[in-house]
């Protein structure tokens, strides 16, 4: 199946597509001008007004006291522990979505195949399982702390909204494997930075053992990031080559 990421074709979006009409359009806009005075800062003022007046996204649920050990109760007292639960909820959500992202990437692999230096099925499946294991690790940690691992915490909500475009792009049938790797890159960059922060936070709160386990997750995420960067690099270079050399370029 032929579907290069950057085929030349009849793209009509630029102003230079239509020199005659665009000249008239520019003239019309200049001549008519605006009806209300000011600039884009009016929008900023409304945003500020609403930001001052509305509430936050939501709260972090309290720990479930049933079956909690005293140590866990102590750990979860005060504001700092709430931050930890909030961020753990964020990781749980992101890792779980990550599993679905790699499932989507596997579908692309089945349709478009790979290239020299591109991802293999075994590699993508392994990363999918890593994401699943990380999800399991975070769930276990939340439960050990007496939290509810199914709760949607504010940080998880924020992260999901922030990265909403990644799954949206990955499942788009118009998008080929090389293009969809850009979504995985976004996810892996965030994953790396987020695990780093989580380890720092666990250490700050005195959860040394948790920090050690999380470090191993970060090690795996660093490998994922290096792999994804490499696949994008080889795929893009291959596509950029011309003539005979382009044979076997990613589609």
């Amino acid at each position, binding site marked *: 199946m032929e579907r290069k990421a950057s085929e030349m074709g009849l793209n009509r979006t630029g102003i230079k597509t239509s020199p005659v009409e665009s000249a008239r359009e520019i003239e019309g806009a200049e001549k008519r001008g605006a009806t209300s005075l000011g600039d884009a800062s009016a929008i900023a003022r409304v945003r500020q007004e609403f930001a001052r007046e509305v509430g936050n996204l939501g709260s972090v649920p309290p720990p479930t006291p049933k079956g909690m050990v005293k140590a866990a109760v102590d750990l979860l007292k005060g504001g700092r522990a709430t931050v930890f639960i909030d961020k753990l909820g964020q990781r749980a959500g992101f890792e779980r979505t990550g599993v679905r992202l790699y499932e989507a990437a596997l579908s692309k692999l089945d349709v478009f195949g790979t290239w020299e230096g591109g991802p293999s099925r075994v590699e993508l499946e392994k990363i999918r399982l890593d994401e699943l294991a990380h999800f399991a690790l975070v769930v276990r940690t939340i439960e050990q702390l007496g939290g509810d691992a199914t709760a*949607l915490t504010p940080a998880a909500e924020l992260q999901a909204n922030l990265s909403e475009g990644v799954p949206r792009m990955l499942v788009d049938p*118009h998008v080929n494997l090389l293009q969809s790797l850009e979504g995985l890159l976004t996810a892996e960059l965030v994953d790396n930075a987020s695990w780093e922060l989580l380890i720092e936070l666990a250490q700050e709160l005195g959860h040394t053992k948790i920090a050690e386990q999380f470090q191993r997750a970060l090690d795996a995420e660093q490998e994922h990031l290096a792999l994804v960067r490499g696949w994008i690099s080889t795929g893009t270079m291959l596509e950029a080559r011309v003539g005979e050399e382009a044979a076997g370029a990613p589609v």
Partner: protein
Amino acid sequence: MGLDLLKEKGVPLDRQKFTWKDLTRRMISKLDDDAFTRVRVILMNGIESESVRFSHACARMNLDLREPLALIRRVEHFQQTLVNWLNPGNQSPLETTLGYEQTAIEVTASVALHEPDPYLAQTYRFGMLEDFDHLYRYSALYDRLTGKDPNSIVQSYTDIIPARPTVLEHRHPLDDVRRPYASRTADPLSKLNALTIVSAENQVHTYYMNIGPQFTDPVARMLYAEIAAIEEQHVTQYEALCDPSETWLEKWLLHEANEVYNYYSCLQSETNPVLKEVWQRFVDYELGHLHYVKELFQRVEGRDAAEVLPKALPEPIGFHEHRQFVRKVLRDEEGLSARGTEFVPRGEEAERTLLYREQLNADGSPSDIASAGYIWRPGTELSVEARREGVVSEGRIQ
């Protein structure tokens, strides 16, 4: 029930005012508000949407009513704006969809339980089971597309299980048209119930037709196309319940009464104080509309509004879980279908419905594809796989 519909005058029309900020500044919290607060928001958007739809249709066919309709319709439009904008922007279209199906299930269950006419009650139970299945199909899609848990929206009030399978819900149009109540003899509650449910379903149909094409995932696009078709069937079914011999003004009066009833129901059960204030304000606005239309009805038709309206409002809609009732209906009535205006065992379906269904499902069933093997579990189906696989010391699955 303290509200006398024929006496209460509410807020007069000329004192019903809005500003853009007033219309848009309130939002519910997806994380912290009760699921039934979202259900009320969704239902009331449907009720207002219906009032505007009806008003436009009426204006197109009644020269003399155009001006009074325009006056009230403008306020209804703004009421709909304020209510629909209570949905927060961080609630995705698919999450709102889960809320729509939960609303369809729980509100229809409440209506079915309180409906005095056995045929109408049967119709509501029939439709409810189908929407119940839609919640399950969309939940599977949500879980598998986003990796997120649909229970964060339904908050354990509503079961996420298959019901009458969507693949079997497709029927020939002539098997979706029902018998209407008789306006002269029907219980006033029956008239309000029919309006409430047709409003909710029409809103769902419109919403799916708008958001379905915004998805990139082909299964999501097909699933919305499939379920939108069932919602169209439901609108056909429920609007057929309303007596077509009611006059336009009689129907208008009923619409206004139903709006009072629905806002009043919301007011009785609301837990969010900001929304409680909204529902109270709109009970008062709707009483103003009702009073205005009542005067018009009595003047133009020379009839007493008491012939049409209940004196006191019926028991409020029950905004709470109906798990036991829904499970019982599923147990007893899953195997039903419809033939003409009557409900029949699936084995007695009309040939036209069998052919219609076979043709539509010829390239496969989106609802089956989306949910193949799906069983909802807390924390998504991946939590089961994660638990099964476990975590080893280096953070990898063994």
